[in-house]
């Protein structure tokens, strides 16, 4: 794994069920995320995905790629074009930085989610791979190869 490497893209169908289930699972009862009529009254063509669901999807895109050993350290996202039901979002990721530390190795990944309107989300995720106990106790070895990614 090195800067510039790309993660396989992930297509996520934006179903009405996903938008509503994500909103309710994140305890977000804003009507624009579950009531199409009220959403339209507020000037939106339909309900749209809430930011917590996008956050969750971005996080799981990364952890699915790197496998269960990977631990999310930081997820920072910015929203753009809304995710409306019937659309498809394609998440892509590019390795931005790889760092080795005494305790952990970390990777920083730039994530972009695009739908038919434009960019739904741009973000940066920092994920850590806890180092083997031997290294933390001081027994330095040859540079550790980061996991290639079980899902990727």
């Amino acid at each position, binding site marked *: 794994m090195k800067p510039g490497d790309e993660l396989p893209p992930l297509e996520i169908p934006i179903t009405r069920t*996903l938008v509503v*289930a*994500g909103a*309710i*699972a*994140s*305890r*977000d*009862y804003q009507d624009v995320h579950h009531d199409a009529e009220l959403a339209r009254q*507020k*000037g939106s063509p339909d309900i749209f995905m*809430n*930011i*917590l*669901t996008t*956050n*969750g*999807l*971005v*996080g*799981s895109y990364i*952890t*699915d790629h790197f496998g*269960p050993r990977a*631990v*999310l*350290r*930081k*997820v*920072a*996202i*910015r*929203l753009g074009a809304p995710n409306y039901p019937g659309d498809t979002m394609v998440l892509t990721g590019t390795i931005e930085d790889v760092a080795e530390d005494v305790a952990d190795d970390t990777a920083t990944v730039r994530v972009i989610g695009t739908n038919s309107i434009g960019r739904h989300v741009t973000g940066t995720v920092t994920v850590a791979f806890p180092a083997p106990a031997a290294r933390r106790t001081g027994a330095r070895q040859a540079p550790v190869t980061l996991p290639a990614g079980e899902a990727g």
Partner: protein
Amino acid sequence: MVNNKQEVSDDLGNVGNLGDTSNPGDLEKRLKAFEGRPSVVAGVGKDPVNAPMIRHWCEAMGDTNPAYAGPDAIAPPTMLQVWTMGGLSGHRADIGRTEAYDELLALLDEAGCTSVVATDCEQEYVRALRPGDEVTFDAVIESVSERKTTKLGTGYFVTTRMDVRVGDDLAGTHRFRILKYAPAGRREKPPRPRPVVNRDNAGFWEGVRQHRLLIQRCTGCGTLRHPWLPGCTTCGCPDWDTIEASGEGTVYSYVVPHHPPFPAFEPPYAVALIELAEGVRMISNVVGVPYDKVRIGQSVLLEFQAYDDDLVLPVFRARGEAA
């Protein structure tokens, strides 16, 4: 055009026009004063971190990561904010929330920024949350932006930063940004064109602002003239004064534009040349009758029509049948 001008009183009892774009500085000063004020103090999660809510989240996201299930399960880190949400019934009024955040949102509502959309979420995860953890949280209003114009509308970005704790341990930080905005209104008509005001006609437009229709009069020969000019076309004298029009007039001529459409107007409409009782003529609109009922010789009476906050124009109301 949306009229978002609202009068509100501030703490000192002063009244100001928050939505008045001619003076956004006052509002911005008041918004800035919220920076650094806490928005939540000692908030308490409605539920402890728990396996059912974790499972519901994973089902919704389609996340099958084994780290989130079983006896050693942790909560998905991206659920951080979920544990702080008020849900359908909201948080208890006596716990956590300060007045500052509500006051800030109310101030923005009053300024016409009634819509809200979340734009940014930045989370750092310091310690994993596990079922049974009781979450507490504190939040501060980190910043309020200057007035920004976005595709959605014009408004202000409000950024809050929340610390989420379990006991004394920091579990994570959560920076959240919303845009409070006045919707741009997709179907809104463009504003009517502004008059071109220069030093030769400034007095005319100042009169209109005061709802007075002023006609120039040459102080050399006494000839009335309109539109305003720097000198008399009859005698060449540069000196003038004004008389106020009585407002009586007749339609001298008119045209009805059908095509091409101009964005601020909906064709067809009548553009009339009005002959004022004083003898000069001016171009205006006839109101009070459909475009196809405007007639030459029709008796009309002056009135002033406000088209938006900044534009008042003299128009003429039809008074009856053509003479």
